[in-house]
């Protein structure tokens, strides 16, 4: 049994949130640098050069890369042999989100009541997902999900007869419809299988996976490659100004589902796709 004080969650969440907003993930920055050379359209290459420069300046001067610091999404993976003490895990993470937002001069972009559009004191400042795993390990991932891309995400419950062709078309059409709104070049997270909510969570985890790692299963990796090619043939290009780089990567996650179903969720990440992750 390992004992950890929840204060660690507050401190680490606050620190990772600021880091994520000042410095985009290195795998994404190198993909953007490569895209700035590979993009075939002139305006697309120029746009990508601006985007790379924005990230270099933000890191050097410690500024938020984007004014939309998004909804903070925290993934807490905790070993079943960890005993958390010192208070509520949830409240500790929420306190970390509030501290990071304030310390980092980040915009609080969350409204407490989605219908009344008002924020009562103490309302949750972000979204937390928990995974219980074997052992004593803990991993904390903090992501800032901007809503330009989040708003263009989609989920559909297909029938088994629709098959993989319909699934692929749905992913490509979702990115096409998202167009410039999602701040391309985008990162596309796809969740296939499970249930309604499992597919969405798979898509979220897929979009937060490093983009320089293909799926370990060969057929899923092939699906990722095929979808990326089709998406980059759409012509949307950087910021929708036309070109050959619409997405930097397509990450797919797959899970068993019902014999009567084929849920598919597509979560789109903008070109910053801010995330940081640490083992505690």
């Amino acid at each position: 049994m390992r004992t950890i004080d929840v204060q660690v969650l507050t401190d680490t969440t606050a620190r990772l949130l600021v880091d994520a907003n000042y410095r985009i993930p290195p795998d994404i920055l190198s993909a953007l640098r490569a895209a700035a050379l590979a993009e075939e359209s002139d305006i697309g290459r120029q746009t990508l050069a601006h985007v790379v420069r924005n990230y270099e300046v933000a890191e050097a001067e410690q500024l938020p890369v984007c004014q939309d610091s998004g909804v903070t999404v925290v993934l807490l993976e905790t070993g079943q042999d960890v005993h958390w003490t010192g208070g509520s895990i949830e409240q500790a993470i929420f306190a970390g989100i509030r501290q990071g937002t304030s310390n980092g001069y980040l915009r609080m972009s969350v409204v407490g009541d989605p219908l009344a559009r008002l924020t009562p004191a103490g309302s949750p400042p972000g979204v937390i997902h928990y995974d219980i795993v074997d052992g004593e390990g803990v991993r904390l991932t903090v992501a800032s999900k901007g809503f330009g891309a989040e708003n263009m995400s989609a989920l559909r419950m297909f029938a088994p007869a629709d098959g993989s062709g319909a699934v692929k078309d749905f992913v490509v059409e979702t990115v096409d419809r998202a167009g410039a709104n999602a701040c391309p070049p985008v990162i596309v997270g796809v969740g296939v299988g499970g249930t309604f909510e499992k597919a969405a969570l798979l898509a979220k985890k897929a979009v937060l996976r490093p983009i320089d790692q293909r799926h370990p299963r060969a057929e899923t990796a092939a699906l990722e490659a095929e979808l990326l090619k089709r998406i980059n043939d759409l012509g949307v290009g950087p910021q929708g100004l036309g070109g050959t780089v619409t997405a930097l990567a397509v990450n797919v996650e797959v899970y068993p589902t019902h014999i009567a179903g084929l849920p598919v969720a597509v979560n789109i990440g903008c070109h910053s796709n801010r995330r940081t992750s640490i083992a505690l």
Partner: protein
Amino acid sequence: MLEDRTSLALSAGEEVRVSGELITIRDATAKRLLDIAASGQTLPVDLTGRVLYAVGPSPAKPGQIVGSAGPTTIERFIAYLPFLFRSGVRGVVAKGELHGDIVSAFRDAGAVYLAAIGGLGALLGKQVVAAEIVAFPELGPEALQKFTVRDFPAVVIIDRQGGNFHETARARWRRSQSS
């Protein structure tokens, strides 16, 4: 102010640098303005000939004029644009796409849509050389502000001839789907 002769000369796909005053707008700002107009009151700012900037900046760090300040998605303002055009607005700076009837609304109003690069907040914040809250300070990042910008980079998306650069650019670069 955007002069008629200036906006008439803009054509879809053209890269421009904007210098002058922009009025900031967000979802909550637009709703407040519409509610004020609907109740027969005078708007807190005269929008005649004005160019709007769809932005909700992050808080300024000490020594900054504004924090990060890139564009937000124009699609969310479709419901407000006809009212804003009637109030005199002649240009919008934002990001993202517009299709369908709203494109002709720009032409009918003699207005243009310029896209700034989304996700360029740190750089674009530096092009704001002065900022002043004009109304609704209680809305925080959605307060109505007057930004003075210098050499602010943008691309003309919808021009006064009805051109829509997002559509022509995509059509030019689209390859047939081979599946």
